[in-house]
């Protein structure tokens, strides 16, 4: 009788420990985006020069939309990755940005001093475009395929590998 009980309890304990171990090794800050597989909303606004722009597929090419701000420290390290990426993939993809909750002079100064990898930056001073896209922190990056579907969203500073991965996904 006693032995029977342990045959039931033991597998359940193993299952519980397995679940706990899994929980400990996952990153609680990584939140899968429900937007993957959905079309990118065609948000309209102005870029940093006041020109009208529309978010989504740009120039009929797979498009990367990078969310950045001059007040965001992690964006600084990411910026070099984007500059390299624009040189490497510039012919086959479009790279645009959302400048999130930033003052125009600060944003312009950032781009003129660090280099501008973007075709344009959508100026989202109020954060409404960010809310529409489920942005909860900068930097974030959306990868959109030619059909305008979001195929990947990264909520962290990009690395060269992440960028290459995303480009491969959106070019499929």
């Amino acid at each position: 009788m006693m032995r029977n009980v342990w045959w039931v309890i033991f597998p359940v304990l193993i299952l519980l420990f397995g679940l706990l171990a899994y929980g400990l090794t996952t990153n609680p800050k990584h939140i899968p985006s429900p937007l993957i597989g959905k079309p990118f909303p065609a948000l309209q606004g102005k870029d940093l020069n006041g020109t009208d722009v529309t978010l989504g597929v740009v120039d009929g090419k797979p498009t990367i939309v990078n969310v950045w701000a001059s007040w965001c420290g992690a964006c600084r390290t990411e910026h070099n990755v984007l500059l390299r990426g624009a040189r490497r993939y510039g012919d086959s993809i479009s790279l645009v940005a959302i400048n999130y909750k930033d003052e125009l002079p600060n944003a312009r100064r950032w781009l003129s001093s660090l280099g501008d990898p973007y075709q344009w930056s959508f100026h989202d001073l109020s954060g409404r475009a960010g809310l529409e896209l489920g942005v909860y922190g900068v930097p974030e990056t959306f990868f959109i395929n030619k059909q305008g579907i979001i195929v990947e969203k990264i909520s962290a500073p990009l690395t060269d590998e992440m960028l290459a991965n995303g480009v491969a996904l959106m070019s499929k």
Partner: protein
Amino acid sequence: MNKNIKNILTSVLLLSISSLVFSAGISEDPLERKVLDIAAKLRCTVCQNQPVAESNSDLAKDMRAAIKEKLQQGQSEKEIIQFFVDRFGDYVLLSPPKTGNGLVVWLFPPILLLFTFFAVVMIMRSRSAKAEITPPSALSKADQERIRRARNESNKSGEDE
């Protein structure tokens, strides 16, 4: 008598004024209340485990402003919550949905409780079964012989006395 009536009238007057003052003091904007009700159900995604209603972060403020705007546009609470779920995922809900993956979260604790209950009952039963006094086994022939001899000897010594 006249003075009494005057006193009563004065106190009634004062009370009616004070009730006016009080009712003005506690009246609140029902729209704000509704905004906070909805915001209490949403997780502030930049601060771990804090509802949007309580957070002072920029994002939470934006979300409250968006809730207010949508309420003014006549959207229902359900529509507004769905707006955030569509963009931020189920994670934005402080109370996980009772479907799909969320069901695991809701069902696991009661199942575990039931399981523990049955496990304890089974263990206690097996223990009480063991604790029962087993009837003594029959004496072996050698033992019976020893008892017989011992009795004989004690009878003898009894006769000696």
